[in-house]
């Protein structure tokens, strides 16, 4: 369903976000991308919905290469669930979910907010599936809690019956208990709708619990690819140890700046 062929991504400032990643994800698989922050998980995912283009190599979706010509057509089959939810805050829950179907709505209908009845019904059904109640529908998204907002984001993602669902750190801004609920929901929804999922996470426990398959990325390289059982503690250790070593490269805070405060406290 998804295929990366020796993909490289370099940013204009010279940083290499992705270095030679080849990957194939079959249809219906729930694939978790694990890795510390800054490892290149987001960049990997953004290449699939056309928000980023590979510098080298090619990305294929359902057998078709994603190019500048095909991206507008292909990205309609890819839905994304974002870390910061990326909902339009002042708009109602209903309109946010409906905006997930905008590509298939006529311009004049979109302009006056008159969505076809079948889409409205679909939105209500999806909102019910993600566990929101009718009383939420007409409220502004900004009035909801973080977990509820992500539920709205998931409902929006399924409006277009996507073949592929990208979840970019869907639970990074939520607390652990709610995270589990959101991932359970994602897992169930993708099973029911037969969607291929590429979900980036940074918690190994959650990855083991929900992934059919786990890949790990560190500093732009694919460092692990296997089943949840194969993801041993040793692998995780290596992954995050590497991350820590990487962090030490960051210049430390100038101590002289902090010291007077300490002196004052002592005096």
């Amino acid at each position, binding site marked *: 369903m998804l295929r990366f062929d020796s993909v490289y991504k370099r940013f204009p400032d010279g940083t290499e976000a992705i270095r030679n990643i080849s990957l194939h994800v079959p249809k219906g698989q729930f694939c978790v991308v694990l890795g510390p922050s800054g490892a290149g998980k987001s960049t990997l995912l953004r290449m699939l919905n056309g928000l980023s283009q590979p510098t080298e190599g090619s990305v294929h979706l359902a057998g078709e290469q994603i190019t500048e010509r095909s991206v507008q057509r292909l990205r309609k089959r890819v839905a*994304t669930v*974002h870390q910061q939810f990326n*909902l339009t*805050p002042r708009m109602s829950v209903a309109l946010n979910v409906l*905006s997930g179907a*905008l590509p298939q709505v006529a311009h004049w209908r979109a302009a006056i907010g008159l969505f076809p009845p079948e889409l409205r019904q679909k939105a209500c059904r999806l909102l019910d599936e993600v566990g929101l109640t009718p009383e939420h529908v007409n409220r502004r998204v900004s009035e909801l809690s973080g977990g509820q907002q992500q539920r709205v984001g998931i409902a929006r993602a399924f409006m277009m019956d996507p073949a592929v669902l990208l979840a970019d750190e869907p639970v990074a801004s939520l607390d652990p208990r709610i995270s589990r609920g959101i991932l359970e929901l994602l897992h169930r929804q993708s099973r029911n709708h037969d969607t291929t999922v590429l979900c980036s996470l940074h918690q190994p426990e959650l990855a083991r619990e929900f992934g059919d398959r786990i890949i790990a990325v560190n500093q732009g390289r694919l460092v692990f690819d296997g089943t949840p059982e194969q993801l041993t503690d040793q692998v995780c250790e290596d992954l995050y140890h590497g991350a820590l070593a990487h962090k030490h490269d960051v210049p430390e805070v100038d101590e002289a700046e902090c010291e007077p405060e300490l002196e004052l406290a002592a005096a």
Partner: protein
Amino acid sequence: MKPSANPNWNWLRPEKNMMKNLSVNRDAKWHLNQPYNARHLMFAIVALLILAVTGSRMEVPRMVQETAQGVGYVVGLNEESSVATGVMRIAESIWPLRISEEIEVSRIENFDRNDLPWLSHVEVIESRTPHLNTETLQLEETVESKEVLVKPIGYLSHVLLKMLETLEMALWGTILAVALSIPLACFAAANYAPNRFIYNLARSTISLFRAIPELVSALFLVLAFGFGPIAGFLALGIHSAGFLGKFYAEDIENADRGPQEALQSIGAGQIKTLWYGVLPQVLPQYIAYTLYILDRNIRMATVIGIVGAGGIGLELKGRFDMFNFDHVGTILVIIFLTVIILDQFSARLRSRLM
């Protein structure tokens, strides 16, 4: 204790700094910059020179002298003052304000005595005109009586109607500005402009609109469309489209990228992304800007008529040129009241929205 690495920090705590100097850091070299240096002195000299040159060209000394004379005259120190007498002459002729309107009956076509306009009555006015009798060489007085139709609030209502026209001009100027600036703003926002050329074109159009003052464009528009409100609201609309376009475009550029990326990533297209990802975010700001522009346009609309572009300004200019200062007084009072009331109203409305 060692010397602090950050001397700026010591500025904030002078007592501790002093302690340090006395007890530990006697050998350390402390150097505080003088608050003023040669550059500040140069700046002060240049500023004074500019003030002196421009001040003499603007006749500031004469202004001060004559104002002082005027004040002296008012408090009784001076015998005469041209400024004070000028102001007083105008003040005397403004007061009492002109409220009523009188029209000679003989000048009204198809005058119907049984069907007078609302709140009006007919009066007979006798006027005596002295003239010299050529035979007796005596000064004689002839009494002429003429019938006039008196409308007690005739002129006031006329001015109020003109004020209404002014408000309508401002309203349509604002509508025009919004209609012009929304497409301009979309092209002038760097992240939605289709290409560099159109972006620059839109930006420069907006700057051009902003650069033409209303009074100047109204002068030319009056030539094109004739006297009346068309020239007025066109001039207002074009000028304020320059402002609104800039404000709108900047808000589109600064809107949160998240919702826009979410819609772009499913292929919603530029227009729908703007409509669903940007507009809901910026709408309250847009309404506040538009209200401000409406407020500004009302103030501008009152004066734009002076060049013949309709509204109360046209009436003001006409009466001023005819030295009807009592009429001018009424117009000024109405303008002040309207602007004050609207100012309060729009300030309250905007603070609610923000």
